[in-house]
Each structure stands twice: as C-alpha cells, then as structure tokens.
C-alpha cells in the first residue's frame, strides 16, 4: 500500500507544464537542437499555428524556452531554443516518469 502511495505521489509530483503531451513533444524536439524554427515544430507536431503558439507561450512563461522573433527578408521568423532550466526540467520529468513506470511494472509482476 505504501509503495502504491509513493507511486501515486511521484506521478502527482511531475511537472504539469511538461506533462501535457504537446508540450512534452515540443521540449523533446527542442532538446535535440541548438535552435529550431517554428515552421519545423508545426510540421513535426502537426499542431495548428494557434495551438502551438499557446503551448509555446506556456513554456516561455515557465522559462523553459526562449522565443526569438525576427525577419527573413519580409517574412516573420520565430526561432526557439530550450533554456538550461527547460533542459533540467525535462530531464527531471523523464526520471520521475521512468521511476513511476518501473514501480508500476514491479507491482504488477
């Protein structure tokens, strides 16, 4: 019963900003590159511009991503970077999730 409680606690303790699937995918992608253009994220995630922007705004509020707006000629350009804080949070989330999954697998076997 205690280990089950611990498992639930560790799942409840995960970072809710990252736990949302779309934001988790966005952070996973950003963690693999130095800088990523908005257009690429849109293509890979399949999210609409508005939806993606709203997720990015939440990640920016949490200081997990850095958003830079510029122009390429006359075309607006949005470039994104994961921050050190974002990278740490993603790493922490992965560890927590892995632990919770392992505990759950042990209990069911």
């Amino acid at each position: 019963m205690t280990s089950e409680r611990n498992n639930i606690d560790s799942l409840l303790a995960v970072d809710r900003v990252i736990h949302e699937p779309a934001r988790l995918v966005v952070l996973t992608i950003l963690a693999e590159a130095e800088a990523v253009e908005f257009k690429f994220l849109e293509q890979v995630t399949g999210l609409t511009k508005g939806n993606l922007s709203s997720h990015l705004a939440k990640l920016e509020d949490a200081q997990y991503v850095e958003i830079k707006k510029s122009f390429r000629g006359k075309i607006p350009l949005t470039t994104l970077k994961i921050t050190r804080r974002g990278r740490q949070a993603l790493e922490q989330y992965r560890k927590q999730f892995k632990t919770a999954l392992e505990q759950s697998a042990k209990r069911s076997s």
Partner: protein
Amino acid sequence: MNAINANPEQLAPYAEITREYARFSRSAAGLGNVIGGMLALLSWAVWTYAPDSILRRVVLVVLPVLWIAVKRWLRHRYYQRYGQVTSRGDRREKFWKVGLTALLALVSWGVVAAFIILGLRSPQHRPLMPMRLLVEIGLVPIAAWFFFDNWVELVLGVGMVGTAVSGAYGEAPHGHESGLLFLMILALIWAGVREHRVYVSLEQKLKQTGRLA
C-alpha cells in the same frame, strides 16, 4: 495531438527525426557533395587539359566558390525547407573544426608573415617565396573553414583552392598523381548520395510524424 502518449520512451522518434534533420544544417551536405565531387573533377580536367587563357583562370577560381555556394544553397533551400533546425553539434566535431582551422591559421599565416618579413629585410627587398605560393598558403585556413565538414571535403576543397590560385597565376600542371584524387572524388560523391538517401527517408518519416499527431 491526443495520439501521442506522454511516455518519454515513445518520444524517441521525435528526438531522432530532429537530430537527423539538424545534421543537414552543419555536417551533412547530401547533393552538395555530389555536385562538389563533379566540380572537383571539372577543376582537375580544366587544370590538366585546358591551355592558359582568361577563361581557364576564371573557371578555376569560380569552381571552389561555386561548390561552397551550392552547398549552402542546398542546405538552406532544400535540406532545411521544413524550417531551419541548427544542430547542437558534436563536441568532437566542433573541437576538430575550430582546433584544426586555428592551428592551420597559426602555422600558415606565421609562415607567410615570416617569408614576407625576412624577404623585405634581405638585400633583394622582396618575399623569399613566390607570391602565388604565399597566397596559396595564406588561403589554406580559410578554405579549411569553409570545406571542413569531413576529411575528404577538406582535402578536395583545399586542393581546389590551391589549383585556383595556381591557375589564376597562369601556371600549368607539372605532372601529379591523379589516382588518389579520383578515389577521393568518388568517396565524396558516394558519401553525398548516401546522405541524400538518408534525407529522402527522413522526409517520409517527417511527413508521417506530422500526420500521427
């Protein structure tokens, strides 16, 4: 987006696609190298068979510049057309690129400076080495910076720049081994074709990933 499970292990394809795609911002050149191999071959043919003329000089100088331009254009306009993704770059790769270029710059510019200074102090009051050679030596680190994405590219690129400088001074070939050169050209073309095939399959995955979500 609901189709995506939050399990971090199921996110691996997204990470892999991004990593692979980002390679085409720095280290992978794909068709850029296939064209580079052909331009290197053309440079060799012009250098070996064409008699000295204005056209020959211009062609020899233009070819390495054209390779750099084509490679860059393909990277931006073709291989990164789904949005620019800059590679984080392997630490080893960065170390080699910056380290080797800095070392080459130190040595070659040191040699150029020494030959000019010592030459001006000598009774003849001119550099101790022909100007063409000094220009060639001085251009080596710059060529290395632009061409060093792998060793074959580096050697062929530096070779083409050297040929361009010699050609610009109207020099003719004085017999050199071309077997190794052809081997390197083939290696570059083969690497380019392989990278391009990787990109084609990556593009398929990229489209599928978007649809899954």
